[in-house]
């Protein structure tokens, strides 16, 4: 814990040197408030400054490496810490070659996008080396020979081979070797392929009967089956491609070279084999603790997540409030230009999905501007601009719901527009707006969960990490939902009390 916190503050110091900004300051203040508990979480949120300039010697440098959220046994969380073959390998290589790595656990698709937009220096995520990927990335020497294997639900005795799949749906991981393989044989065997984002979801899909089989990388599948994930493998592994560490095409050549050197050394002195054996020969005993054991084990990580959820909500709501008030006044202004600005803004942010906005600000904007953006900034930017659009409408609606006779009475007394607004209209409008404000507050808090897709380490993300490693999806999601429920109920009760007190 303390090491993680220190790491968090190091990152913050680095940030101050490179690009001090309001979020950094806010984050520091929030860290001071939340104490050490938020430190580690914030580390995941603020890791940036990927080094892209060529260097001849990378000793002492720090590289941000992106990985999948959970691709056990290559990367997964155990007791809140990222572990797995990929993690052990990259850390061992870094130690030997004298550089430092900061791991960003983003999810497979997101990791690749982050690499393409130079948000990170490299990706190690159990990624197969393919000709297609070689077009956009430079790969290291292969560090693992993988292959695809099929698995079905434990109780399924009907499917024993590919021929039994006719007319059925199977599931594979989006963009993975498993999907490519499944697609290559689907016409021959007459089945449909559905793509999902992570292994835990795929296994649940098979257990729930939505899909009859899953095609996944054999080490992952083997690990999951050893963890009692409720599946069994019925076919042999297909000879597949090899995994490699990737950097963006033409960049970070020294990092790639260092990885190759380190890998060769690890293989030569047996440490490489020791790492593989740890995960593949002797899988960790499945956690068979009861619900309360799960609750106790997951609470530290979930609390970290909750801290970040509240931080992102608080910052977003504050910014959205300012945006909403300014643009709400624009909307009721007599000047057509101001009204047009506000209307355009509201149309854009109410007219596009929040998820698309989050992807745009985190992945799209850096590609357009060449300026990388950290995940908390991107998340808060997304949520505040989105909530700001709704706030604008709340403010407009509140002002317009005050009877026009009130304005007329004020103006006929010789009071100016501003004075009439301030003394006559607004006190009445605020009273009308308050319940909507509280509602928007709750909405924004819940919307933070969508930021999990860009790797923001908030509550939902932490929950996904936990069930991705232990396959206890239902129980974990219940705990996560209960935490949201408790926090939202407390906040709503508090807000309503304040509303009653000040808006009599």
């Amino acid at each position, binding site marked *: 814990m303390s090491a993680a916190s220190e790491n968090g503050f190091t990152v913050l110091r680095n940030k101050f040197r490179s690009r001090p900004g309001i979020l950094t300051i806010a984050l520091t203040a929030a860290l001071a408030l939340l104490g050490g508990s938020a430190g580690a979480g914030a580390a995941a949120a603020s890791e940036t400054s990927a080094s892209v300039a060529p260097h001849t010697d990378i000793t002492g440098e720090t590289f941000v490496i992106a990985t999948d959220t959970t691709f056990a046994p290559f990367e997964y969380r155990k007791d809140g810490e990222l572990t797995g073959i990929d993690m052990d390998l990259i850390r061992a290589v870094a130690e030997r070659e004298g550089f430092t790595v900061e791991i960003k656990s983003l999810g497979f698709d997101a990791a690749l996008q982050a690499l393409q937009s130079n948000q990170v220096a490299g990706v190690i995520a159990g990624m197969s080396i393919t000709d297609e990927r070689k077009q956009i990335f430079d790969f290291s020497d292969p560090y693992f020979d993988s292959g695809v294997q099929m698995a079905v639900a434990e109780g399924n005795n009907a499917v024993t081979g590919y021929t039994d799949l006719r007319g059925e749906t199977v599931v594979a991981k989006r963009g993975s070797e498993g999907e490519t393989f499944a697609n290559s044989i689907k016409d021959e065997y007459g089945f449909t392929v559905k793509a999902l984002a992570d292994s835990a979801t795929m296994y649940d899909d098979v257990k729930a009967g939505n899909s009859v089989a899953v095609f996944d990388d054999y080490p992952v599948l083997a690990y999951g089956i050893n963890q009692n994930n409720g599946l069994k493998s019925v076919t042999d592994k297909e000879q597949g491609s090899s995994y490699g560490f990737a950097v963006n095409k033409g960049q970070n050549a020294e990092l790639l070279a260092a990885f190759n050197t380190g890998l060769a050394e690890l293989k030569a002195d047996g440490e490489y084999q020791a790492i593989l054996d740890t995960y593949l020969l002797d899988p960790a005993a499945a956690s068979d603790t009861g619900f309360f054991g799960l609750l106790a084990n997951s609470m530290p990580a979930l609390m970290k997540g909750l801290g970040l959820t509240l931080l992102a909500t608080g910052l977003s709501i504050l910014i959205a409030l300012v945006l909403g008030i300014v643009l709400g006044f624009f909307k009721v202004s007599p000047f057509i230009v101001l009204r047009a600005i506000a209307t355009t803004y509201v149309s854009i942010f109410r007219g596009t999905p929040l998820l698309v906005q989050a992807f745009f600000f985190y992945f799209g904007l850096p590609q357009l501007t060449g300026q990388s953006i950290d995940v908390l900034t991107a998340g808060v930017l997304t949520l505040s601009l989105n909530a700001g659009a709704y706030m604008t409408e709340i403010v407009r609606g509140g002002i317009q719901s005050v*009877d026009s*006779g*009130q304005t*007329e*009475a*004020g*103006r*006929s*007394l*010789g*009071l*100016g527009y501003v*004075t009439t607004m301030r*003394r*006559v209209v607004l*006190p*009445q409008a605020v*009273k009308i707006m308050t319940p909507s404000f509280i509602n928007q507050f709750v909405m924004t808090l819940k919307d933070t969960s969508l930021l999990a897709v860009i790797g923001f380490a908030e509550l939902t993300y932490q929950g996904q990490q936990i069930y991705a490693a232990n396959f206890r999806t239902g129980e974990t999601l219940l705990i996560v939902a209960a935490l949201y429920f408790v926090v939202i109920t407390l906040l709503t009760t508090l807000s309503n009390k304040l509303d009653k007190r000040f808006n009599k």
Partner: protein
Amino acid sequence: MSNASKISVRALRKSFGSNEVLKGIDVEIAEGEVVCVIGPSGSGKSTFLRCLNKLDEITAGTVIVDGFDLTDKNVNLNTVRQHIGMVFQHFNLFPHMTVLQNIMLAPVELKKGTRQEARATAEKLLDRVGLADKAQARPAQLSGGQKQRVAIARSLAVNPDIMLFDEATSALDPEMVGEVLQVIRDLAKEGMTMVVVTHEMGFAREVADRVIFMAEGVIVEEGTPEELFGNPQQVRTQDFLSKVL
């Protein structure tokens, strides 16, 4: 009647979109004169009144109040409006303030003397409309007649020399009309210049120096109460009066 005009309206036209509500109004109102405007609903009476302090934009023509041309962009409307009190059909009291705060708001915001002076003035005005004991009440706690008397006190607080009444008794229960009319009657006696849009024909006959009959956006006929009520010249005036009297 042709002495110095307090209000001078010339060729006033007002349209809401394609609907022309006022079709050329010419009127001169002298200082201290009490003018009652009568006519069927939709005749443009209220719109005419609301053009006199430019609560409604003026489409064409001129309105000159106290020498200020309201259609002139350089004229500070807020200053002009401080000389023109207005009383609305639906009172438009500020519900989030006490009666006293309602009356004190404009003098305090417009910095017409100290807060203490504003308070003293407000209390005096409340006393004058017979509501001294309601200073701390909220508008919601008052009857319609009481609300309208507070509204009159509120518009008097900035010390106007013109008062506009827009159907001030139309929203009141019959038993409360009298108390409001009494306040308006007192103001008339004190020499306040007033334009009163009303459906109370008896009241118009009693307090008006001049009665204007409007229909379909024009002034059909005007004259002293005796002339207009006693011997209307126009058919439309006769029609209207035969229905309401």
